[in-house]
């Protein structure tokens, strides 16, 4: 199947074309969703986003690092059912610091230069999701799984 070989390319395209994704966290079993500006490393093994530490999503992932990130390229038209691609990444999130933060912040700001003030604030955490698995959905019902690890 052509798409199977192309899963990485489709995901790369999705990650570079889309600026925002939905982050899923939970607290005591209660799921919680947040729209965040994200960036992916070129090997797709890591997704990165920024948040202030006083937010609910940050408190949630501190108490349980298991999260998801949902990405898609829908245009809110009927054609989406045929054309839109959606992906869900499952993984573990943690705040990065030091050299790793510097490196990832550079990559993140290359995609979102206007967030510089936000990302460089001492109150802002840069969070890395180490992706375990991607689920890619296209043409309405076709689903592919890619275990990254």
């Amino acid at each position: 199947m052509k798409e199977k070989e192309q899963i990485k390319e489709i995901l790369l395209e999705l990650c570079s074309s889309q600026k925002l994704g939905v982050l899923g966290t939970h607290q005591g079993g209660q799921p919680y969703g947040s729209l965040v500006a994200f960036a992916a490393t070129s090997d797709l093994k890591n997704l990165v986003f920024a948040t202030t530490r006083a937010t609910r999503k940050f408190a949630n992932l501190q108490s349980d690092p298991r999260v998801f990130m949902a990405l898609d390229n829908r245009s809110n038209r009927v054609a989406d059912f045929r054309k839109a691609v959606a992906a869900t990444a499952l993984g573990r999130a943690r705040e990065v610091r030091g050299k790793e933060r510097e490196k990832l912040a550079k990559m993140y700001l290359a995609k979102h230069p206007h967030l510089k003030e936000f990302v460089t604030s001492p109150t802002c955490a840069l969070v890395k999701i180490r992706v375990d698995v991607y689920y890619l959905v296209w043409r309405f019902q076709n689903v592919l799984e890619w275990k990254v690890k």
Partner: protein
Amino acid sequence: MQDIKTEDRSLVGGKGFALAVMARGGLRVPPTLCITLDAYLEFVTTTGIRETILLELGRKSFEDMRWEEIWDTSLRIRNAFLQSPFSEGLRGRLIPPLEAMFSGKAVAVRSSAPGEDSARTSFAGLHESYIHIRGIDSILEHIRLVWASLWSDRALLYRKELGLDVQKSAMAVVIQEMISGERSGVAFGRNPLDPAQAVIEAVYGLNQALVDGTVEPDRWILKRDTGDVISYHEAKREKILAYTPGGVRLELLPSELGGKPPLEPAEIGEVFGLTRKAETIFGSPQDMEWTYRRNLLFTLQSRPITTGSSEPGDTRRWYLTLHRSFENLQGLRRKIEEELIPRMVAEAGEMAQFSLALLSDQELAGEIERRLKIGEKWDEQYKEYCIPFAHGMRLFGQIYNDRVKPENPFEFMDLLGGADMISVKRNRLLETLVRQVRRNPRLAESLRSGRREGIDPGFQKALDSFLAEFADQSWSQARFDRNPKALFTLLLNMALREPPRKGSARRGQKALEKKYFSRFEEDQKEFAAELLNLGRASYRLRDDDNIYLGKIQAQIVAAVEEGKKRLQRQGWFSPAQAEGQDVARALRNPRYRFKKGSIPGMKPEKELAGIRSRQLVGQPASSGIAAGKARVILRAEDLFSFQPGEILVCDAIEPNMTFVVPLAAGIVERRGGMLIHGAIIAREYGIPCVTGIPDATSLIPDGTRVTVDGFLGIVIIGETALPGK
């Protein structure tokens, strides 16, 4: 210039197009190059500045933004332009033609926005132009500044009329060889006040001084059809804006020119001829700028005449007048320091001498009214002189940013801070009292119980000298001397907290100062020092003049309080919040009925069916992060029971209430801006502060836990964990 065709109009902007048309029509214009809109669009796209602008403008609704916040916003956008370098591609296309045309020459870099000079709308002066720019790098830098001025505070005020749109708006730039004329002026082909007339105004030296009102021009009113002079107004010619090797400078006009009009009769005819010619070319009467260099007449720009009538109640024109030149600001400073403040002190002192108790009721009523009038008079003076002088900080900030190019557009505030403001001096004196309370448990106990015996003479003496200087400070009805118990509570509370942190403002100030001066050439250093001095005075007086105003206010309060006391003694029901006017009337007329007054200050709104604010976004006004219990200040009395470590939430911090600031762990204020009192004092003490949160006092419930993020300008209400954890 010669390549510009009619269809290029939208690409080169109004100014660029008009120059091209004039050059073709045979008028003498300086050598000119146009940088089209495409360059702007490419720049904001590749640098990500477009998103930055969207973020900045999306912070809060424009309707909720005060003038000062709009200035802050545009300063941030301006800095984003200054901080973003040109791409190699853009540099490669811009530099060769600039070098070919202007190598070694001084140029003017002017804004040329599409539609800016059209007949329907005239917004002259909303965008920036820079004169006497030399060298390619400097020209490139000023192109960015002109681009940034598409989002100047003035342009943002007129955003609707300009149709400003982050996605679509763009700016062309005109680069012109500098023609340093010996005599310059403006000319109106038709007098906006009388269609049968034309007007010519002229000054010695450069035009900018005339346009910004620094130098008064000679003025001729002419017959529009014949060019005959109808009337002539001779100016008091004293100054000249001249071009010197060190830049443009306002100088004394040489005495031999002082007695001579800038234009000879024949030249008046020549300038008038220019307006006729331009009217023929453009098809409508023109508003023109011209200059004579070595007796050759150059046209600098031309635009259609518009009648800029503004809607009644439109305060924007007043806001625009707040932009003042360096010279104008120096004049304001002298007026405030040498005239207004001494008079305020004298007037407050004269009122304080008065024995109110000796007056009859009728006389007291008269005295109250007299004081209210004095208060009104000073409010007007404040608006006329003190508010515009605050622009001194802004002017300094802009020049600092241009020279130093700091990453943080508000770094200049650290250089202005630490000025010896009266409120800081007052707080220092309070701190010496607090130190004694902290060291001496017996004294603390006496203050707590209100007993006199434990109060040692040293403390009493310090207390007396504090009260002698600051007792009459008033914020609304709060006075230090009216209620000693309240002052003692404040001192006890202040003693509970750690000794104050050293303000961050002073740290590194010397280094900043050095950095600032290093960016000026040797012969400009004097100007740099004068500018810094002016900025500091503006920063300090911004606070101080309110303290002096408070002294006047305190005398009004004293008379009104005396009146209320008498009314109460006579068995009147006297509402505590009654206005002075009512008290005076009641003293005169025993049958006077008080209207039911509303209590000032906002009451916290009730939670609406489970809806509440959880995170609010304002402006980061002093960096740091703090969490604590919100103490919402609605009226003056709330101040005295302020507990250390609480978060101060209020509508606006007045200099007269800043004595509680050192107690606060963080500050949240409805009024927005980086240069407001609350922000200034917060930075002096290094306390995290967020300003510009609309309805802060009603959205934040008193006593709830809040987190103040002074880095990002965010206030988080409540605990961060989900309920049920």
